[in-house]
């Protein structure tokens, strides 16, 4: 009675045959785009000497686009009404006093909502619930916890954040002690010179995983767009150029810091005599920053505004107002009785008229 045509380990499981007919246009477009962009900096800097263009104009322009675009999109969301009260409830509601209500997954106080959002944002809690479905035999579904994506996502985002914070040392003088401590902790496990940061390794592995999963899992590959590969490659480009600068092709950090401080003071000076890798690094960062508001990266501010997660489950307790509510045509009791009065009378149902 029941057949699965292609037996499937898990719909998200890997099988070598998944790679057959490996044809991902989107990926090749993105790879080409990244190569082209790299080529562009190299020509620009080495061939045409456009140092100021790449180190002053582009970063400023990118930052400008970022701020304007980011604000525009966030304001657009924030000013769109939430007509209905639609939290996705995932825990016991608050109803009878003797039933224990779940204030996180079915929040009934603002504190509950804050906790729910904090867990979602800081710990990616929904991904922690992730489970994959496996067809074990015909008509046998098996659910297995599947936290790999959670792990990869956490590793990527948190190391990204730490790396970002570490970069503050270029922009702040004196360098705040918290940043110094962070940097120490990040490099604590080794006595190597040059220091290898733990987060550098983690983010590379995590990015590698996020990238590979888009290729080897057929369903994820099917949904992936060029732009999905593009962001991952762009960030990978940033990380790789950064790591190489640190480990192999050393950059004059004094120069970099001077450039950064000057940019901040709005008295920009182009850095002198720095490695080509620095220009690539900086150009890619500028691209990421400019691209941010145009892309899915806007999930960062978006998650705070998600109406299925940031509302309390108290819609029977407190009235939610729809700002654009308008009157609608209804079928009134009078119209109803008009149509059915005789038969209502006949069976002895009470009526208003007659």
């Amino acid at each position, binding site marked *: 009675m029941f057949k699965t045509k292609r037996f499937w380990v898990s719909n998200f499981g890997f099988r070598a045959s998944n790679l057959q007919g490996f044809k991902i246009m989107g990926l090749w477009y993105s790879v080409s785009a990244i190569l082209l962009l790299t080529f562009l900096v190299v020509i620009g800097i080495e061939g045409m000497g456009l140092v100021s263009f790449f180190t002053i104009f582009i970063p400023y322009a990118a930052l400008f686009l970022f701020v304007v675009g980011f604000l525009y999109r966030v304001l657009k969301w924030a000013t769109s009404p939430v007509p209905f009260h639609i939290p*996705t409830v995932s825990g016991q509601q608050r109803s009878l006093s003797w039933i224990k209500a779940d204030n996180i997954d079915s929040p009934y106080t603002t504190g509950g909502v804050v906790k729910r959002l904090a867990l979602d944002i800081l710990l990616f809690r929904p991904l922690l619930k992730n489970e994959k479905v496996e067809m074990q035999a015909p008509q046998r579904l098996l659910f297995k916890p599947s936290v790999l994506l959670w792990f990869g996502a956490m590793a990527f985002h948190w190391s990204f954040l730490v790396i970002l914070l570490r970069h503050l040392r270029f922009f702040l003088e004196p360098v705040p002690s918290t940043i110094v401590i962070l940097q120490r902790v990040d490099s604590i496990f080794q006595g190597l010179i040059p220091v290898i940061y733990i987060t550098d390794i983690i983010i590379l592995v995590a990015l590698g995983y996020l990238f590979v999963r888009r290729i080897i899992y057929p369903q994820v590959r099917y*949904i992936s767009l060029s732009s999905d590969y593009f962001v991952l490659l762009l960030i990978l480009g940033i990380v790789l150029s950064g790591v190489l600068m640190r480990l192999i092709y050393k950059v004059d950090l004094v120069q970099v810091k001077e450039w950064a401080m000057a940019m901040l003071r709005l008295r920009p000076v182009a850095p002198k005599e720095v490695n080509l890798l620095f220009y690539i690094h900086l150009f890619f960062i500028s691209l990421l920053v400019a691209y941010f508001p145009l892309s899915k990266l806007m999930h960062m501010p978006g998650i705070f505004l998600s109406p299925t997660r940031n509302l309390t489950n108290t819609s029977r307790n407190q009235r939610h107002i729809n700002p654009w509510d308008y009157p609608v045509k209804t079928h009134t009791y009078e119209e109803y009785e008009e149509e059915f009065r005789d038969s209502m009378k006949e069976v002895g149902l009470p009526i208003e008229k007659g």
Partner: protein
Amino acid sequence: MADEPSKEKSLEIDYTIPKKSWMEPSTEFRKGTYCYPAASRHEKYLELPHPREWQPTDEDWKLPEDWREVILRGMEDRLNRYRSYRLFLDICVRCGACADKCHFFIGSGDPKNMPVLRAELLRSIYRKYFTLSGKVFGKLAGARELTEEVVKEWFSYFYQCTECRRCSVFCPYGIDTCEITMMARELLNLVGLNINWILEPAANCYRTGNHLGIPPHAFKSTVDFAVDELQEITGVKVEVPINRKGAEILFISPSADYFASPHWYTFLGYLLLFHEIGLDYTWSTYASEGGNFGLFHSAELAKRLNAKIYSEAKRLGVKWILGGECGHMWRVIHQYMDTFNGPADFLEEPVSPITGTRFDHARSTKMVHICEFTADLMMNNKLRLDPSRNRKWKVTYHDSCNTARGMGLFEEPRYILRNVCQEFYEMPENTIKEKTFCCGSGSGLGADENMETRLRGGFPRANAVRYVHEKFGVNLLTCICAIDRATLPPLLEYWVPGVEVAGVHELVGNALVLRGEKERTTNLRGEPLDSTISPSPSSGERAG
């Protein structure tokens, strides 16, 4: 297994990914997988745009001349009116966490049934016409042209989503594909593309007060019939007030409860309960429907149908409203009604007249769920119960999507069940409460003509039932949803023969010891109380 003669058609699930990109619209309409379009008379009756006769299998869908502008204007309008819509179209990262959470994907293998791709079908159009990246990068950024093929594809896939919200639980941002489906269906309506299984009940409800189109005198005779039946079973003659002014409580349930089977026994359960506690209440014929098929069509139609509830409560002068067992009815009542048609300031804060419990959580809406009400009665020992009268049943409980993810009503029905039956077993935890699997036929998809889609969509639910059926011998699936009661029986018959379906208050009605009743020899179904005729677990094996 392969040699077994299969009387019914077999369903294959094929998870191989098609060769062509999802951006190319799929517009195949295979018999058994789609719902029939709405008859134009229902559209006319409800004054909806562009009524006409057409078929999905037609080449020409007779769209209005300016269909593209109508849809794009409709999108723009909704983008400005719903934050959920704009935000959910913007922030999906295509991580795929939602993909294998949808019962339609699990049961069909069709990648366009992954919530993320279902949403992309609409998102791709949004990108093309409303975002800079889509305009500039086109296909690379996942943007595509709005063509008639795309509209056809929408009709196909947005009527293969039961708006169950399971995907939303697992999405890191809570992206709710149900919201996307709701918007898409509104857009389809703008160009006159509706399904009959939604609009016929809606038109009926508008006119007669209920989905089934039952006029008041037929309602009355059905109630009289129930009274006789109950007298036969229990020896007690119950009072059933209808349209009675000045009652304390207005009771509203889905109309299937008093007209369909196995809903009917739940209806009998309500009547016995209200009689036994001497509730001062009334039914209404004008508001004789708790369900709201308008919700599956558009917010506006939902509001138009929902308006009856408060207006009838006002006319009858009741103090508060009690609501029966229904899933999407409670989505509307819990999350929409007060916003649609409130404030209900002519009503009073609900207080149980029997226990004095103040239903503080329903202070504004003034409507209480019958499971909340009954659980409170039981907690306060107001009912005499004999669970042995349900001894033939080994019971499990299906959380309906809407009372679960729309409301969080988890423990109340379970508490009741534990009080009224002797054996209760939970299905695996990945398939209950907030992770519950849809019956596969919600949101107006419970038609006959799309049975294949329904059986596929219901497969994960049926699979969990099968698990407890084989492990514990469970032979009764209880639920608090009228759509479930209508659609789970054929589903289980296909996947897990030997398990029946019942409402929670049917079991309450069985267990409830009435004052002055005669000794009961049968349950509300008229079956002997013992388990001799109950099907044995092994009969389920045939399904494999």
